[in-house]
């Protein structure tokens, strides 16, 4: 007993110490940042980038070096794992980083939205040493909506060409000559078949298919994504169809190329473990990771090409760009040049993640690093002559549409290339044809709107005051009034500030087109076109609604029934029941990201617990466990999430258990005297007595189901970023608000959600009439 008390005291003290430490730590940091802000003499530049630990170390070194040589300038370096989301949110917050990584693909979007500063190319002397192709990649011509000419919007820091990484040992064992001088896709297919035949654990190859490298595959078959403009989608032409067919043939007909589906699949890691013959198209960035391989030899070879077509390599390149909103343009450009300068280029060359954008560094030993793998490093540079940069549409939705359709044909094998090509074209043209993307709008008349809102508010307040004053009150009653309002004041203030006001603003925003990158005053008034787009042009909207409804229909009944059953079980008076209650309840305290990351590894179809347990049983019946978030995701992804929620059944269980304990024993006595069977007792006594609880839980369950976000966000992130079967409504909304920066459109979506929920709640209320029994409710 004393020991328990001592332990408890110790726990309390430890907790108190940790909390104190946290407050001191955070307090000190906040104080420091306030001091920094007050001390306005120093110029502070913020830099946002992505990359692994080594890349971080390089940027960190450069930044400190810059600070050392420029007294009075301080640099804050931010590193983001989910870079796009972070950058977009910072832009939306009106606090963009002064410098950030800009991918070539994002140039149209960022340049057109004026988010990047135009650089004075003439003032950058070292520009001559850069590969011209890369510099031109970051020039934007707003009239033609093309890159290649016009103002310079970023300085390329590095780039890569695309190659294939091959396992030399597997090639030798299969008797395939290493195609150092290039190979055709026919030769490739044959090689894959021969390597795959080496053993059940060996895959001939891996073909990467995210939009940029898929485009490379299409080019190498003599095809293209687009014609002369972005309305001319050429996926249905022979070259593109042949590229898709190649993937389908090798993955599904020959089964020689590994089809990585599902969550947390890592093909790159399979290569490292020696189970892949050839992997690509991949860039230089894989080299440092594969340099750690000791168990087999590897090298790089060119990408295959179609018979008669020229070899071609896509170029992936990233620039440092300066925000158009930077407060210190001069210092920012200085830092930009420093970060892209020779010192940094040499450092990152030695790291080996990319090819330096300065020709003199790329051609030097710093990059070629003789004696280190890959032996054929020259190939990365040779491919520049076959290098190609595709033009990209400003609307980034194209990649999403493409990604979804390609998943259907190339991963899940439930569409033909021709069908997928047609679907991409249809959806993309619909997107372009939407009034939101084709019509010109005027500014939102904010002055009028605000004036009208103020008048309405004033009228409402006046009438409220008038109503309140109508009745004369005594002193005590007045005291009650004042004190009552004082107590509920916090909530009323919160309601006005965080609910009512935002609802009004959200309704106004729903009628605008606004990116959040520009001031609110630049929002365009679009009337109801956001809703028109939503219902008539956005196919993802229907998809997101379906996923959400599917989840709701499964999750709400299953979880409630399970919770009631478990509660009945827990209500048994058997010895040791308290222990079981604990065991059943514990999982429900685990929620959020930790819950999802745990379950992701459980659902993994290769190394996960669930399928390892299911398969032995299912195999007896001639079945196979589903690939939950992969090929079977259309029907199984949502049930998997329901299963995950079911783990937390203890939360609902305790509520029902309390309900059960409140049912008077006399009711059961009476039922038994009447000869009711146990089942009958449940439906005649237990169910009606629990019905208010069930009703409450169903209403809250439906509302909760429509707001699923964290699970979907985290799982989508680990299954390759496009999984339309995980596109929950709120995730779709988040994407538009913070990824595609369509704040107006997202607001419209929020209101549609609100209306749907309101309608559903009313429906549940109506449907429950006569079913819900309120014992002892005074009318």
């Amino acid at each position, binding site marked *: 007993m004393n020991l328990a008390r001592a332990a408890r005291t110790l726990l309390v003290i430890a907790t108190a110490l940790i909390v104190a430490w946290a407050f001191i730590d955070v307090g000190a940091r906040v104080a420091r940042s306030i001091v920094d802000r007050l001390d306005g003499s120093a110029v502070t530049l913020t830099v946002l980038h992505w990359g692994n630990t080594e890349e971080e170390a390089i940027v960190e070194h450069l930044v400190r070096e810059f600070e050392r040589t420029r007294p009075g300038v301080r640099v804050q370096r931010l590193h983001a794992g989910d870079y796009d989301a972070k950058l977009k949110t910072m832009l939306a917050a009106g606090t963009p980083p002064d410098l950030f990584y800009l991918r070539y693909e994002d140039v149209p979007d960022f340049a057109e939205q004026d988010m990047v500063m135009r650089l004075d190319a003439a003032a950058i002397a070292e520009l001559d040493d850069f590969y011209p192709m890369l510099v031109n990649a970051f020039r934007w011509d707003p009239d033609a909506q093309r890159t290649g000419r016009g103002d310079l919007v970023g300085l390329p820091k590095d780039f890569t060409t695309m190659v294939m990484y091959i396992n030399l040992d597997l090639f030798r064992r299969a008797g395939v000559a290493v195609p150092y001088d290039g190979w055709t896709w026919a030769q490739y297919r044959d090689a894959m078949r021969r390597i795959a035949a080496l053993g059940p654990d060996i895959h001939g190859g891996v073909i990467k298919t995210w939009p940029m490298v898929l485009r490379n595959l299409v080019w190498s078959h003599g095809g293209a994504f687009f014609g002369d403009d972005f309305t001319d989608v050429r996926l249905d032409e022979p070259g593109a169809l042949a590229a898709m067919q190649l993937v389908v043939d090798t993955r599904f007909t020959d089964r020689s190329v590994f089809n990585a589906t599902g969550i947390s699949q890592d093909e790159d890691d399979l290569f490292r473990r020696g189970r892949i013959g050839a992997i690509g198209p991949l860039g230089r960035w894989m080299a440092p990771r594969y340099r750690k391989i000791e168990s087999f030899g590897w090298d790089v070879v060119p990408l295959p090409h179609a018979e008669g077509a020229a070899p071609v390599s896509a170029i992936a390149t990233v620039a440092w760009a300066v925000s158009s909103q930077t407060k210190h343009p001069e210092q920012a450009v200085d830092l930009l040049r420093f970060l892209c300068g020779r010192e940094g280029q040499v450092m990152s060359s030695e790291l080996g993640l990319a090819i330096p954008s300065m020709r003199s560094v790329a051609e030097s030993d710093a990059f070629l690093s003789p004696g280190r793998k890959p032996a054929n490093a020259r190939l990365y540079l040779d491919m520049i002559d076959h290098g190609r940069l595709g033009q990209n549409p400003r609307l980034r939705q194209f990649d999403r549409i493409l990604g979804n359709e390609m998943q259907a044909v190339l991963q899940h094998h439930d569409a033909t290339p021709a069908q997928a090509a047609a679907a991409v074209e249809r959806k993309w043209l619909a997107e372009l044809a939407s009034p939101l993307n084709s019509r010109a709008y005027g500014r939102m008349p904010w002055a009028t709107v605000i004036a009208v809102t103020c008048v309405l508010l004033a009228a409402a307040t006046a009438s409220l005051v008038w109503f309140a004053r109508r009745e004369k009150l005594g002193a005590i009653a007045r005291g009650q009034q004042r004190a009552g309002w004082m107590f509920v004041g916090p909530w009323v203030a919160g*309601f006005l500030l965080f609910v009512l006001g935002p609802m009004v603003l959200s309704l106004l925003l729903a009628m605008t087109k606004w990116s959040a990158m520009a001031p609110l005053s630049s929002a365009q008034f679009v009337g109801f076109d956001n809703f028109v787009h939503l219902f008539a042009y956005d196919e993802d909207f229907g998809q997101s609604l379906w996923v959400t409804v599917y989840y709701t229909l499964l999750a709400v009944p299953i979880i409630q029934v399970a919770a009631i059953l478990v509660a009945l079980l827990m209500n048994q008076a058997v010895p040791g029941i308290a222990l079981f209650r604990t065991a059943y309840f514990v999982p429900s305290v685990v929620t959020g990201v930790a819950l999802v990351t745990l379950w992701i590894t459980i659902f993994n179809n290769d190394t996960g617990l669930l399928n390892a347990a299911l398969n032995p049983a299912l195999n007896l019946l001639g079945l196979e466990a589903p690939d939950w978030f992969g090929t079977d995701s259309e029907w199984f992804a949502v049930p998997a999430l329901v299963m995950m929620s079911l783990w937390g059944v203890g939360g609902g269980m305790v509520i029902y258990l309390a309900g059960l304990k409140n049912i008077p024993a006399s009711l059961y006595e009476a039922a038994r005297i009447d000869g009711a069977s146990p089942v009958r007792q449940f439906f005649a006594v237990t169910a009606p007595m629990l019905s208010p609880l069930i009703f409450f839980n169903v209403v809250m369950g439906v509302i909760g189901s429509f707001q699923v976000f964290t699970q979907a966000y985290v799982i989508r992130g680990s299954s390759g970023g496009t999984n339309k079967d995980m596109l929950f409504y709120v995730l779709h909304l988040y994407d538009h608000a913070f990824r595609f920066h369509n704040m107006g459109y997202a607001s419209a979506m929020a209101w549609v959600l609100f209306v749907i929920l309101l309608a559903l709640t009313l429906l549940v209320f109506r449907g429950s009439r006569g079913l819900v029994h309120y014992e002892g409710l005074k009318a």
Partner: protein
Amino acid sequence: MTTIATAPVMDAKPRVKTPPRPRNLRRVLGTYALLVGGGVLLILPFFWLVSSSLKTDQEISNISQLLPAVPQWGNYAEALRRMGLEVNGGAIRFPALANTIVVTVLCVVGQVVSSSLVGYGFARYRFKGRDTLFMVMLATMMLPAQVTMIPVFLLFRSVGWIDTLLPLIIPAWFGTPFFIFMFRQFFAQVPESLLEAARIDGAGHLQIYARIMLPLSGPVIAIVAIYTFMFTWNDFMSPLIYLNSPENRTLALELNAFSGQYGVEHRELLMAASFVTMLPCILLFFAAQRYFVDSAASSGMKG
């Protein structure tokens, strides 16, 4: 089914620890079978989590190996290091943990103070518009947070609070309908004579609230505190939207970044990181088990 359906009958009697009578034996055994079966299913993921977190890089991809040959405790140190823990001589820096603790503690305090104040107001004062206001408040429970998400974001942006912890803390100080409702139900049951006596002794409104009502409402405070703790500790969307700088991140964000960066390659570290993140909630549960299981009973939801 039979065993289950008669459950309430058994429980209706006072709990006596006599050995079960023979004719009930089969039922008891059946009950245990169900209890154990379900319990194993529910505990299995925990077992998997802990065992995976202690495996080596090689062992983790070997599905038939349930337990690590040698527990790799170093995985935890490495996972914590990658989540931002720095031990520098005597100084410990772990921004994600410090931030999460600060936000959680301030939210719990804010939520208890504000919700109890408002609940008390609704329960014990007669003022014009009270019932309308109460209905409006209950109705807002149905409002999806996404409707207000963007404007609230703009609101915090306009006061320059983006990338600070304030947007995560401040809203908790204005009360939450569900918790207000719970406090109101509780305060409404307190006998009027108690307040009357205090009033005669000359206690003011706030004194009655602080000296009489609040101390009485221990169980409700515990529930509100526990649920606020769990929600805030695990909240993901708000930190995702409001926080940018690495040193401002919370554990949930750090864990998500972790799974994006190292998760696929180092599942054992990811599992260790997940376990560390969920541990405080589990500890809290064991420390306050009584309140967890009683929560529904005293929540006033019985109507």
